[in-house]
């Protein structure tokens, strides 16, 4: 599978978690892609933590406005019903539990729901931006990422090794191989992506996965 098709597969599956009327924050990368796959008839309002509720399409060439960007600093537009607010209000929304779903990438996630996605010791630290607030405050956090790292190693661990972004914050993990849910009993294998077997997922995963056969295949 190409990296592009993996990313699309993940984004498509993530978007199925959105419900009509949800307020959603999408992180940079694969999470942002999920906006392209929002189901028909499902109106989702996208939050941008720099101070916008209701992100629209990217602008047409020549219609960019330097005063209108998303949290990834990309030029965007608004939708009817958008609103602007300042950074403190934006994070009052986040921290106060008003965001239904945050979708975010990860370097590591573990079976307890711990998340690491902002620093690697010894490397230059760019900063956590709004990630720590989003994972601590949102009603539900979905991790959207490739199942393994560039070296083939599992990014889904028994216990995170990198400095954390949040403790027990992750609800669901969506990769190109599977969908997993953090439960009080442990990490449950919810679905296997088309083209993969449960066995393949287990072999690619460091974390202990709870498997309740038969494991359904993700609908396309």
């Amino acid at each position: 599978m190409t990296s592009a098709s993996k990313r699309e597969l993940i984004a498509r599956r993530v978007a199925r978690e959105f419900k009509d009327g949800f307020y959603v924050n999408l992180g940079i990368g694969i999470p942002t892609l999920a906006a392209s796959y929002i189901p028909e008839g499902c109106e989702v309002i996208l939050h941008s933590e720099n101070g916008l509720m209701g992100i629209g399409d990217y602008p047409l060439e020549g219609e960019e406005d330097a005063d209108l960007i998303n949290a990834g600093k990309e030029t965007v537009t608004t939708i009817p019903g958008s609103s602007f607010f300042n950074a403190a209000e934006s994070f009052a929304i986040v921290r106060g539990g008003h965001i239904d779903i945050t979708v975010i990438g990860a370097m590591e996630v573990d079976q307890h729901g711990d998340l690491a996605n902002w620093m690697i010791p010894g490397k230059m630290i760019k900063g956590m931006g709004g990630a720590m607030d989003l994972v601590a405050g949102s009603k539900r956090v979905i991790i959207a990422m490739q199942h393994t790292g560039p070296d083939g190693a599992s990014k889904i661990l028994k216990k995170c090794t990198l400095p954390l972004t949040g403790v027990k914050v992750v609800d669901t993990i969506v990769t190109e191989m599977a969908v997993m849910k953090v439960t009080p009993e442990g990490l449950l294998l919810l679905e296997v992506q088309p083209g993969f077997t449960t066995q393949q997922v287990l072999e690619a995963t460091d974390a202990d996965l709870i498997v309740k056969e038969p494991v359904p295949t993700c609908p396309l």
Partner: protein
Amino acid sequence: MNKVGTIEAAMERIQDGATLLMGGFGVCGIPENLVRALQQRGTKNLTIVSNNAGVEGAGIGLLIENGQVRKMISSYIGENKVLEQKVIAGEIEVELNPQGTLAERVRAGGAGIPAFFTPTGVGTPVAEGKETRNFNGRDYLMETAIRGDVAFVKAYKADKHGNLVYRMTARNFNPVMATAADFVVAEVEEIVEAGQLDAEQIVTPSVFVDMVIKGERYDKRIEKRVNRQKSGAGI
């Protein structure tokens, strides 16, 4: 009441070693005229509180390259490679805060609240050295207020009393920073008479603003120009 001032007068209010609060998100909504004037003046040893650290050749990047910054208090500094080199060389100290914590710490500084509790960062490196406390079964960190000697903010329009309105996401941290410094300078694109801004729409009431300046030139650099195709759906 007329708070319209000159950029020269604004510069006289900031001294070597000052803590400077600055609005902006990336290089969107930054007080670019004040930054350029500060670069020219060469004020040194600054602690700058700003979500980001500008980019090379723009925004706070100018001050960093010019050796005027001792410390950055930010949430994300990934866009500035010169800063990276200066951090490695030990010339600049960086204190990273979660973005919402940074915003709330400054809001608290402006609102007379010395400290508050937040769930953000519990169990992470951000929690090191901070008090953790349980409320209703959940752990929270205590975070303290931030105030500045001076704040530089960018608004869209001001009236002569110092009331401010912003434009789209160029609002970002500006209204927050405008509340929490001993001397607050707002640079704007247009200055109107008191009463010409609708009282319902004023975002920053004049009480927070000490001086208003009309910016001479706005480059408004775009960091990431992304377009959709006419035919495509885009984001």
